[in-house]
């Protein structure tokens, strides 16, 4: 698959994500309209449309806020900046993306943005502290690859739109359990409650499946692109091996932002994974990614 094909596929998927968001919110609106009040439903519909438009332009900012990422200057993190600059040059980006820091000891990183002109990469303090310069270059090249392959808009939008679906579903759950204006529309009441429950079960599952559909092949491709950008697949493989062996939990991660990170931050967390097996995994197994890099570079997997 060439870069152009990937970019085209990302555009299509972006449209699908927006469509999926529209359909899911429409379904929720209908459920609310049936169970509660059409005017409330209409209001929520308008809010959802506004939110969708807002997300298109500001998803990356929302993601930064949700994961506690702050812009930093070159003086504060010269090694990180250099790694980002080198990768940006190696990938032929029109400008060096902004560099953000996440105050967290767990080594992890992600990229977000709208296009290569408006993008940033975020790295945790732990990543910079625990990786060597060579490994850091590999990880940053992976993030830069997401920007160059135009993955970032899709991933940022998915984070923000998927996040809000989970939020709305949670809210609806609370209303159904604790009662909102459920006394009205008595005839639709029980039916509406059942619909509500179904929607509440389906919404997060649909959302999670959506996330999964986004990530897996994208990660392999970004790894391959990173190897091309740095000319050093082993650097990235060594970094991934370090991430694999590190068990520090990332604090600021949510279900909405998990797929953004270079390594799934929800790994080993109770609940999501243990109850549903690999269904909700947003990332291919690290072992697999390391093995592929090792094969491409012709070195023994670390």
């Amino acid at each position: 698959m060439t870069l152009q094909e990937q970019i085209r596929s990302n555009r299509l998927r972006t449209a699908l994500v927006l469509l999926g968001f529209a359909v899911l919110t429409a379904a929720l609106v209908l459920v609310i309209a049936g169970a509660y009040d059409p005017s409330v439903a209409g209001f929520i519909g308008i809010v959802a449309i506004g939110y969708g438009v807002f997300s298109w332009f500001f998803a990356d900012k929302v993601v930064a806020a949700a994961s506690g990422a702050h812009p930093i200057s070159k003086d504060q993190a010269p090694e990180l900046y250099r790694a980002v600059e080198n990768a940006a040059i190696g990938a032929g980006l029109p400008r060096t993306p902004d560099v953000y820091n996440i105050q967290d000891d767990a080594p992890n990183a992600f990229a977000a943005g709208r296009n290569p002109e408006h993008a940033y990469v975020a790295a945790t303090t732990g990543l910079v502290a625990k990786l060597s310069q060579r490994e850091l270059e590999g990880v940053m090249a992976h993030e830069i690859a997401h920007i160059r392959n135009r993955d970032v808009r899709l991933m940022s939008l998915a984070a923000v739109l998927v996040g809000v679906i989970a939020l709305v579903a949670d809210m609806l759950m609370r209303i159904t359990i604790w009662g909102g204006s459920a006394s009205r529309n008595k005839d639709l009441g029980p039916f509406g409650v059942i619909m509500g429950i179904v929607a509440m079960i389906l919404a997060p599952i649909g959302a999670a499946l959506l996330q999964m559909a986004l990530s897996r092949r994208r990660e392999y491709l970004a790894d391959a692109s990173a190897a091309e950008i740095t000319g050093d697949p082993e650097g990235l493989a060594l970094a991934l091996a370090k991430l694999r062996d590190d068990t520090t939990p990332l604090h600021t991660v949510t279900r909405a932002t998990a797929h953004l990170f270079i390594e799934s931050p929800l790994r080993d967390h109770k609940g999501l994974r243990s109850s549903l097996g690999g269904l909700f995994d947003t990332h291919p197994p690290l072992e697999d990614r390391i093995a592929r890099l090792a094969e491409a570079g012709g070195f023994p997997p670390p």
Partner: protein
Amino acid sequence: MTAVWIVVAIIAALLIYLVLAYNRLVRLRNEVDSGFSSIDVQLKRRADLIPNLVESVKAYAVHESSVFEAVSQARSATLAATTLPATAAADALMQSAITGLLGVAEAYPQLRAVESFKALQDELADTEDKIAAARRYYNTTVRRYNTMLQSVPTNVVAGATGFTRRAFYRIEDDADREPVAVKLGT
């Protein structure tokens, strides 16, 4: 009547293909050009470090005029170069000149302890990394462009509209050598 429409459809499809193929070639060629100017930017940046570097070394090694001469020649060659072969030649010249200059610096421990000199060396190492990255990107885009140029049936479009192959960026002796080791001591 149907036959006419079929012919029209075939011609339209052909035209669309030609436009798409042409546009793809243009895009790839632009990437090659911007890849080259990215190398150029980094080489100029390295050249800009030279005067300060020479000054700090001169303060200790007064009698090494041949080394300073070589570096300043390489610098003017870099600034004057506009074509790919000239740029690559200036690049090679600069690499060996810098190796010579740092080799001289190696003999003066006091110089290597000076903060500003260390900072310059660090900056130089960083620029070398960036030149290597830019070179890698350029060669990748050239490979893509040349492949597209030779592929059937794009080669027909390319031949008819005057696209020509581009050369890889190579520095004299070998294909893609490692950047000069400029990290002394550390």
